[in-house]
């Protein structure tokens, strides 16, 4: 499903973010991407949704070589990938319903289908009763649930989460991880970049560890520490 082959990413001014990474992630896997700040986790995710191109090596997502992908094809790749970020990236002037519906509007979804899908996904993340509230009226956990709903609303085959629990207390973080696990059980490939030791240790999923841009550990059912 996702394949990195000898990938190196060097940013301007010679900053090396990833060094010679080779890794395969199969369809339906749940992967934790861990490592200290600046180890290359976010760069790893940005390469998957073709926000950036590798300096060397190749990245394949669902059989597509992203280095050779044309600019106009990128939106269609992203419709197959859901995103969740630490800072939620919700539009502050749209309520929960509108934020989720926005993801369908931009891909030109039919209005009736849009309504049905948004209602269904809000039910799934437990936000149906809060759908008319604006982001600032929600707790951190609820905001991340709204972001989750937006990521899941078009049933993407891949879900990427960059520190999705970074701004949340334990209970709220647990709720978000439960939603990620549930999406994974439905067949979505999930990759979570995180610093949350408790969650990584409790789930015992595949763990890929990066340090200074290099892959230092790849455990099938790993923990946060060796």
């Amino acid at each position: 499903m996702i394949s990195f082959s000898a990938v190196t990413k060097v940013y301007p001014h010679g900053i090396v973010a990833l060094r010679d990474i080779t890794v395969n992630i199969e369809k339906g896997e749940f992967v934790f991407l861990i490592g200290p700040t600046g180890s290359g986790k976010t760069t790893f995710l940005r390469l998957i949704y073709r926000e950036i191109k590798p300096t060397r090596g190749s990245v394949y997502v669902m059989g597509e070589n992203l280095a050779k992908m044309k600019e106009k094809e990128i939106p269609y790749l992203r419709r197959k990938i859901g995103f969740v970020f630490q800072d939620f990236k919700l539009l502050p002037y749209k309520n929960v319903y509108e934020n989720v519906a926005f993801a369908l509007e931009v891909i030109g979804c039919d209005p009736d289908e849009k309504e049905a899908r948004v209602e269904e996904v809000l039910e799934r993340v437990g936000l149906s009763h809060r759908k008319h509230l604006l982001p600032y009226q929600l707790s951190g956990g609820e905001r991340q649930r709204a972001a989750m709903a937006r990521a899941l609303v078009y049933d993407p085959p891949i879900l990427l989460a960059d520190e999705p629990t970074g701004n949340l207390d334990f209970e709220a973080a647990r709720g978000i991880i439960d939603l990620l696990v549930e999406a994974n059980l439905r067949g979505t490939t999930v990759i979570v970049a995180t610093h949350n030791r408790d969650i990584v240790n409790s789930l015992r999923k595949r763990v890929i560890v990066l340090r200074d841009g290099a892959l230092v550990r790849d455990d099938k059912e790993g923990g946060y520490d060796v």
Partner: protein
Amino acid sequence: MYKLKYFISEALKGLWRHRVMSLLSIITIFLVLFILGVFLMIGANVRFAVESLSESLEIRLVLKGNPTPQDVQRLYNSILSLNGVKEARFISRGEGLRNLAKELGREDLLGLLKTNPLPDVFEIRVKRASDVEAVVRSLKGWSETQEVIYGKEAAQKLLAIQRFLIYGGGILGSILLVSALLVIFNTVRLVVYARREEIEIMKLVGATHWFIRFPFIFEGVILGGVGGVLAFGALILSYGEAVKVLSSQFPFIPVILETAVLYKLCGAVLLLGLLIGFGGGLFAVQRLLGKVAME
């Protein structure tokens, strides 16, 4: 159709959400277009006045001897065939003397003179001051010509004013136009820049570039269009007032009263607003879209 409605509604919502900025942009666009419109109107009127004066420039072709009516007709046709000649009128020596007697108030002048000392002449009017010299040169070359009399200085002065209007007005107008373009362009760009977070999210959720561009282009067109309509209205109203004042204070200054010309000028200002709004919206969003693709 659904998409078009979506784009327009998103554009209107976007403008309303950033209403202070939108309002400031509209005011800026209005002022810039209004100033440009005023300049265009002044330029058109000065040109109109110069052309009106050019029409009153007169060339007198004094003929040798006693031309026959056939000669007069032939000369008349030759004069009209010259480039730049608007009209010509033959004044025989008899008519000339009668006119002179009338001007002097001496009806007995005809009886006092034994012979008529005046020559036969053609009074010629040109289309533009710049045509005078060429017409005079042609007339001087004819064998029937005794003398060509014309207001050389006046023609040259008018010609200089016309040249100044063409070159000076062109340069000044271009500077003003480029400034107007830059101000409006940057105003629309600022409105779009304030929305970069929205653009980033649109890109993340898989919106195509054209889907992202459209609402911003509509916003640009609305900003430019509203500014243009306001400038159009203000120009028409203020021109009417200015003409009233000029006609009462300086009735000898010729001004354009033809409404078709005014509407054309103001329409050009409105169209300019729409076009720059369109361009500003398109290029601003294009730059934001291009930023990530560059990396």
